[in-house]
């Protein structure tokens, strides 16, 4: 099918000013790192260097945790909840005011299409602050005490490590509930996407947030490890790979640190023969090609009922040929750049293994830019459950298609994974939706929709997709103690 021709419609970069280099945001100010090492963060769609950022070392982590502790024991924990909440409302408003700036910066640093950063990441990040702001003076009404008779109290200093797929959004999922509950935070953004977190530090300054309540330290995995293992951290919140999540769980074993871990997934998106097929195809596309498939809860395994499999796959391939892959800043772009060379290598490796193990590969025909990191939307058919592309998280625009005959078989295949983050169900039959939703061992189940998120809606996984929830009353629970008597 011929694509509609569109004239280029690039969003202007002029709205955002990127500094040549950034320090660490500790104690309310940007400061130089103690050991002074730096690295470049690049635009993954062009490989152009965007800025030089700091690699925080041991002494820097120490300084950040100390600043957070001082703020916790100082002004922050003495502040009434109502006032604390007002800071969060301010932050939400500033994020809305500067939304376009954040959207452009996110797209530059991450590679995601501007329509997603503009319409999804940034508005939802602001919504998370707005939602949690309202909790700050209502914690005793949240039903978290469980009969202990004690009001919820903050835990103290929270160490937070977030991934590169939704940089500002993940920051908001972490910082908003932590602050609402009265904690202070040290947050490390992902190595490849630090810029919106650093711009958020400016927002904290504009909001007059007391110094040290939010500290942002940049760096790679080692900086994250130093933060998580720091004895002055009372709670760890991590979103990222299951492998790193397990290492964090091990590192805090035997301590009294608490943790929430939001890890990998290999979600089944299950399409029954009575589904509205065109809607289901849109849901499949949204499920795995949203954000280049860089989504922990992506519907990366399509389970389609055998008698409609040919039809669904035909329509899916047809639809994928209309996706526009290219310049992330172009407002018509559907699929942007892969976030990093390392991630592109990982996707290539697993797709090559998929072919070697006998699955049939099909990629949407598209002209990929010469520079930057790109991967065409790809579908594997003839996939077996034992194939690595059916078992391992690829975290890219790659869909593995399997078939089933009965609902019981769909459940068995969907649950046949160590993960349990999300699942999708497509059918017009209500009783089947509810039965399937009961059977699926996953923390979020989307029925006749996919990849929906809301600050009021708890998100998180079963099994090796981690523990704890983010969002809603349940997410708040991860940031308070109620002095349980058991």
């Amino acid at each position: 099918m011929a694509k509609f021709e569109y004239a280029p419609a690039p969003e202007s970069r002029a709205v955002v000013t990127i500094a040549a280099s950034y320090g660490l945001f500790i104690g309310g100010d940007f400061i130089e790192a103690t050991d002074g090492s730096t690295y470049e963060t690049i635009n993954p769609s062009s490989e152009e260097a965007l800025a030089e950022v700091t690699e925080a070392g041991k002494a820097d982590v120490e300084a950040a945790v100390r600043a957070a502790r001082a703020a916790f024991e100082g002004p922050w924990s003495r502040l009434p909840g109502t006032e604390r909440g007002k800071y969060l409302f301010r932050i939400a408003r500033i994020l809305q005011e500067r939304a376009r700036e954040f959207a452009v910066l996110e797209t530059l640093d991450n590679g995601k299409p501007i329509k997603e950063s503009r319409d999804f990441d940034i508005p939802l990040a602001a919504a998370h602050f707005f939602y949690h702001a309202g909790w700050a003076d209502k914690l005793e009404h949240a039903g978290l005490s469980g009969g202990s008779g004690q009001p919820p109290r903050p835990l103290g200093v929270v160490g937070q490590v977030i991934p590169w797929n939704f940089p500002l959004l993940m920051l908001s999922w972490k910082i908003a509930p932590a602050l609402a509950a009265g904690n202070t935070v040290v947050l490390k953004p992902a190595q490849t996407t630090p810029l919106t977190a650093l711009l958020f530090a400016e927002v904290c300054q504009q909001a007059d947030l007391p110094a040290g309540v939010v500290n942002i330290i940049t760096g790679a995995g080692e900086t994250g490890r130093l933060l998580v293992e720091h004895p002055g951290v009372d709670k760890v919140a991590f979103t990222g790979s299951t492998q790193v999540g397990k290492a964090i769980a091990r590192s805090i074993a035997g301590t009294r640190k608490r943790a929430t871990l939001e890890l990998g997934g290999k979600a089944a998106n299950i399409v029954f023969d009575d589904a509205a097929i065109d809607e289901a195809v849109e849901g499949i596309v949204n499920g795995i090609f949203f954000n280049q498939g860089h989504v922990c809860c992506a519907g990366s395994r399509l389970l389609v009922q055998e008698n409609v499999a040919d039809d669904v796959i035909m329509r899916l391939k047809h639809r994928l040929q209309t996706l526009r892959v290219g310049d992330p800043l172009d407002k018509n772009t559907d699929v942007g750049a892969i976030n990093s060379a390392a991630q592109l290598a990982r996707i290539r490796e697993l797709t090559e293994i998929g072919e070697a193990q006998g699955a049939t590969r099909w990629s949407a025909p598209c002209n990929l830019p010469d520079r930057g990191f790109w991967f065409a939307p790809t579908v594997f058919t003839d996939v077996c459950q034992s194939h690595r592309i059916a078992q391992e998280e690829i975290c890219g625009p790659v869909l593995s298609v399997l078939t089933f005959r009965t609902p019981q078989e769909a459940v068995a295949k969907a649950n046949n994974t160590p993960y349990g983050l999300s699942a999708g169900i497509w059918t017009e039959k209500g009783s089947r939706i509810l039965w399937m939703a009961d059977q699926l061992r996953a923390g979020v189940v989307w029925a006749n929709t996919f990849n929906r998120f809301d600050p009021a809606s708890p998100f998180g996984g079963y099994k090796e997709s981690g523990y704890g929830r983010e969002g809603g009353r349940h997410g708040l629970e991860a940031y308070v103690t109620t002095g349980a008597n058991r």
Partner: protein
Amino acid sequence: MSPTEPGPKNGAADQRIEVRKTYKLYIGGAFPRSESGRTYEIRDSHGKFLANAALGSRKDARDAVVAARGAFGKWAGATAYNRGQVLYRVAELMEGRRAQFAAEVASAQGLTLAGADKVVSQAIDRWVWYAGWSDKIAQVLGGVNPVAGPYFNISSPEPTGVVAALAPQRCSLLGLVSVLAPIVVSGNTAVVLTSEHRPLPAITLSEVLATSDVPGGVINLITGRTAEVAPWLAAHQDVNAIDLTGAADADALVWAELEGASTENLKRVLRPAGDGVGAVEPDWSPTPDLTRIKFCLETKTVWHPKGG
């Protein structure tokens, strides 16, 4: 012997030799001996021999996990009303055996019979308390979420799966019930290592369970050395959660190592009470809060579009 003579003339004419009980494991609704063939001596609080209990092994623990996994689907799928009645029935049956429980608790913990009887009452009442929770949990912990869009969005708690538990070492019956009931009330199945030195009330409880309506495999009890068997449960890949309460006062056991081993499949862990690396057994008398129920629950959130 003359027919007029009443019996043996050994001075024990009216003394009957007691029929002692063989204390075994409780796995999958049956009472096997340890596959290892081993036993260990159980003594009362004064050091007097009471019984040879089964010395559970790694294999016994694995068999118990298989039984618990097999029982999970049906137990989790039972209605909350049904589970509540099943737990209440355990209380009913314990009431009928209270003299036996009291005697065993008294000898295990060095309590007076009156003191032990009070503890038995508390243990029975704890089943009743948790039984009543079965059909309240979802409403108290779940609910509809007001999302910003045309979607029905609801969160509800679900059991996490197979839960291993280290029963308290000191409080042999009330402590055990206080750990066990909150695991199974929501639909989880349990593999419990009983108090190492005070396991007899637990085995008597298993006899109650076997004649109650609790399906075989839902609750499995293993007697033996906590430090020997616990690491296998902590590392077991088909166990979803582990309660380390009984690490307090357990012989030669470091709970940090158990938590470390449990991370391989990211088990949900309930750490023992206490500060730092220490562990203390809590006072089991007060009415519990929801901590223990919550630790082995998952929150599932379901979305569906609304439209005319």
